[in-house]
């Protein structure tokens, strides 16, 4: 059984009388350990797809199974718990809490996890170490560079050791150098066994992944294995 199963997924936004289809029948599976990019121009439906995959939104038609179960199999509280324990989110704009240290930001998912408070520090420190930010734990987001902020956000996404990490344009707000470093970090995390689903509109960024699903107008245009993967340490130029 695949970790993520998508079958004939449709999403139609209903704005009063106007119906706007965002997804018009999308199907694919993603196995554990994969590193998949979902590509497409703006308006292609990739953000909508990510929201559905992250249990932040419900499909209009079709079926999405995460770990064998659909959105409707869970209560709202169970959905929150799955987002907390099994999924990690990385956003384009980092979304760190201002005036809150890196350590406290990384701890945030633990607050809602039900894990004993005495374990929080250890878990957070380990996640921070894995993104190479141990020297910045007491800094506020405003004291960090964009790349460092995104590292902190990735540490936050990893702290509960989720089954899958969703990254929504993680390099979109970064210069090419920091962007490259972030992609190297994500690649490294995948090498350690994390399942990663990356949303991007840049071919260059997508080529770090093992597989690219290209969307256009709410449909899959192509779904292929990346033959010439960009490998770590190669200099990153936009």
């Amino acid at each position, binding site marked *: 059984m695949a970790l993520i199963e998508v079958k004939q997924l449709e999403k139609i936004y209903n704005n009063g009388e106007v119906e706007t289809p965002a997804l018009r029948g999308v199907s694919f599976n993603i196995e554990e350990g994969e590193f998949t990019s979902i590509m497409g121009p703006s308006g292609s439906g990739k953000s909508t797809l990510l929201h559905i995959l992250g249990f932040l939104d419900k499909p209009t038609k079709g079926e999405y199974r995460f770990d064998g179960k659909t959105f409707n199999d869970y209560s709202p509280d169970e959905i*929150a718990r799955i987002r907390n324990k099994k999924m990690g989110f990385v956003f384009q704009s980092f979304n760190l809490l201002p*005036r809150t240290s890196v350590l406290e930001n990384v701890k945030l998912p633990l607050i*809602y996890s039900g894990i004993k*408070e005495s374990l929080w520090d250890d878990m957070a420190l380990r996640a921070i170490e894995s993104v190479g930010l141990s020297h910045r734990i007491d800094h506020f987001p405003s004291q960090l560079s964009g790349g460092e902020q995104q590292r902190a956000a990735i540490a936050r996404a990893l702290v509960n050791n989720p089954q899958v990490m969703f990254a929504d344009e993680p390099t979109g707000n970064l210069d090419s150098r920091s962007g490259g470093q972030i992609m190297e970090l994500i690649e490294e995390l995948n090498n350690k066994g994390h399942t990663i689903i990356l949303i991007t509109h840049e071919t260059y960024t997508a080529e770090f992944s093992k597989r690219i699903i290209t969307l256009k107008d709410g449909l899959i245009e192509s779904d292929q294995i990346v033959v010439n993967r960009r490998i770590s340490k190669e200099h990153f130029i936009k």
Partner: protein
Amino acid sequence: MTLKYGIKTAINGLKTNKSRSLLTILGIVIGVMAIIIMMSLGEGAKQLIVGQIQSIGPKTITISPGRRAKGPANILSTFSDSLKEKDLEALKKKENVPHLSEAMPIVFGSATAVYENETYQPGILGLTEFFSKMFNLYPSQGRVFTEDEVKSYANVAIIGSKVKKELFGNEEAVGQKIKIKNRNFRVIGVFPEKGQVSSLSFDNAIIIPYTTAQRYIFGIKYFNSIIVEADDEKNVNQTAEDITNTLRTSHNITDPDKDDFSVQTQVQAMEMINAILNVQTAFLTAIAAISLIVGGIGIMNIMMVSVSERTHEIGLRKAIGATDKDILNQFLLEAVLLTVIGGIIGIALGAFFSFIGALILTKFTALQWTFTFPVFAAILGIAVSAATGLIFGIYPARNAALKNPIEALRYE
């Protein structure tokens, strides 16, 4: 989310907007402060009055002429002249009122007193020698008049401290002759300062035998009231009943509604004053509570702003696993924390101003005002402010909890 972490988060949230938080709780501070002041002053007034009444003693019963006023129309009946010497005689008979230990008539009014070139207008109280024991009031110089002096219409007077000061200054007063209504009286005693019992102040009074007062000073044949003391506290109610029956017989009254006198025990008097003060305090406190409502609306307003400002944060928290309840609790806790802090400040300020008020009252009036910190009011203040936070915080917190995480994250 644990409560400890919730409180920590709430404190952080409030710290972010320190001055805004402070201004917001001002309404709560003022509301709780007003409640504390009202309740503290109310309690102080009660203790003062109850203390004064108790100083006369729980065994005493007051008989007043006229029906007990039941409305404005009855006020005139206070001036009734229904209590006479024959009533006093009847009351003193053992078969009528068996548990009566003392009965003292009171006659009062005011008249001009003259000593050499000094003139003064004090209150004149006509009593029996028993007043000293009943009011626990003894002259600091000289003596009290005797039973014989009362019976023989003696022209003797005991003067209050203020009267002494006005007429004699620093001169010796005992043994001197003063003129009251052109009649010569010998001063036989002087009261110490602050001789105050119930609402009567003796500083500004001259006490003479009631017989003399009736015949020579006021020219009346009735009493302004009679004070009776029962032999034991447990017989007070029985005695009050006996007195009522005796006076009805003496006045030929068969219909209780036509009583031309009223009998009141100290306990009844205290209960009545307590009831009046309680109503007054409750009324003033209710007015003070209105500012709490206004304060609560302020809290609601600022929480709405806070929720809107932090839409992004709410979206993020939800995306990483906060349930609706977690978000609701976070904002509710913040509102409650805000109002409880306001409540604590309000209690402290209220206690402070009540204390200052008590000091001023003691200093500038003759009242023996004691500052009381109403613990009940403090607990009420905390509870009410917490409740204000809950009531006015629930709507903004619900707004926050029901936000769609996608919309919230997109919100800039």
